[in-house]
């Protein structure tokens, strides 16, 4: 069975380590904060200028001056700090964030990522995504393995305008957890009940499959 949005978030959350500073993109990445493992503390960075982001506010706590990078109302935890966008991206660009999780339209075997523009259709802008992928060493991309029409999003070469070149090393899809290395996709784990064959079929870029591909433990 393909992973649900929640399961994707759960699997990513297993990569968290105690003391990590983490930037979570909009969408599925945001859900990761709901699954931080017991005994582990992480601090969430929101690129508009907040370190130590908390959950959504209670209705009574809503504050127009306290939003996340997705422009949603949020809260700040004890130990948080607010700063300018220049300082925030200094943090990101300087490689001080331990883990960045973000979505994508396409990823390829060279570690390229396309996530911000579909020419002629979607011209919203890259926001902070280009800075995030260029600044982070440790990135996990989360996305569905294929489009609704069954077209692979794991490609030999991205077809859409790039958000970043040669910067992605790990991709978690609803079907598989994949490492990108030496110009190839390497299958690390498969979603529970999903066969290697299914993954292979929906992966357009070269996929290296080891003898034993464990199921994810969610």
């Amino acid at each position: 069975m393909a992973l649900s949005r929640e399961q994707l978030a759960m699997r990513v959350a297993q990569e968290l380590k105690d003391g990590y500073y983490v930037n979570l993109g909009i969408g599925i990445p945001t859900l990761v904060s709901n699954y931080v493992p017991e005994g582990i503390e992480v601090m969430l960075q929101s690129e508009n200028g907040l370190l130590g982001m908390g959950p959504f506010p209670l209705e009574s706590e809503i504050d127009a001056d306290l939003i996340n990078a997705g422009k949603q109302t949020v809260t700040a935890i004890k130990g948080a700090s607010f700063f300018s966008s220049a300082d925030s991206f200094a943090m990101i660009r300087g490689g001080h964030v331990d883990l960045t999780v973000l979505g994508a339209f396409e990823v390829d075997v060279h570690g390229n990522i396309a996530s911000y523009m579909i020419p002629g259709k979607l011209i919203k802008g890259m926001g902070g995504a280009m800075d995030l992928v260029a600044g982070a060493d440790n990135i996990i991309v989360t996305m569905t393995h294929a489009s609704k029409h069954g077209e692979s999003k794991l490609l030999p070469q991205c077809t859409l305008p790039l958000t970043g070149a040669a910067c992605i090393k790990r991709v978690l899809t609803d079907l598989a957890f994949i490492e990108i290395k030496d110009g190839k996709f390497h299958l690390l784990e498969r979603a529970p009940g999903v066969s290697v064959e299914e993954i292979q079929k929906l992966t357009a870029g070269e996929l290296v499959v080891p003898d034993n591909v464990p199921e994810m433990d969610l």
Partner: protein
Amino acid sequence: MSGFNKVVDSYADAMHGLQDGMTVIAGGFGLCGNAENLIVEIKRLGVKDLTVVSNNCGVTDFGLGILLESKQIKKMISSYVGENQTFMDQLLADELEVDLTPQGTLAEKMRAGGAGIPGFYTATGVGTEVSKGKEVRQFNGRDYILEEAITGDFAIVKAWKGDHYGNLVYRQTAQNFNPMAATAGKITVAEVEELVEPGELDPNFIHTPGIYVDRVIQGEFEKRIEFRTVTEEA
């Protein structure tokens, strides 16, 4: 009256001197920390062909979006404009020029403009459309692109508290692009929620020293919320 009393009493005075074709740098992220009434004044002035530098462009009927509706903006330099349908329509109709700039690069370009740094290198955008026409240079074996500073004829910022010297502090994430914008305008106008007496702001914790600010006005703010997300009460 001292040369350091920068308080003006009317929005007309606050934006005096803004002309057709000028560049305006605006603080704010989404609808958070916007100089709401200064934007309304720009609309009232009716100046045209503006280049506006701002991370976003408001929504159709609020924030910078109202200047799109009145077709006063010739060019936007922004990182994300996805929340504004008017923007998309004008862009597709070729009525508007847009320079999409990564958010961190945009923030740094404003800071550089204020800090007398004409250019800097960043890895952001290397190998993407953003790098087109830009110098690529290696440092320690990695490619970086040269990005240039941005300055404006005017900068409009929104602060929480300010004094008549132009010292400003911002509140929570309403800080965002405001401090850099404040440094990058030839004329910087600050709209504040609360005008306080000199000495009330702790000198250890001034976000924007008054040297960057030319005019200060106290405003009333709607502070519209773009996406109201809540945790249900238990």
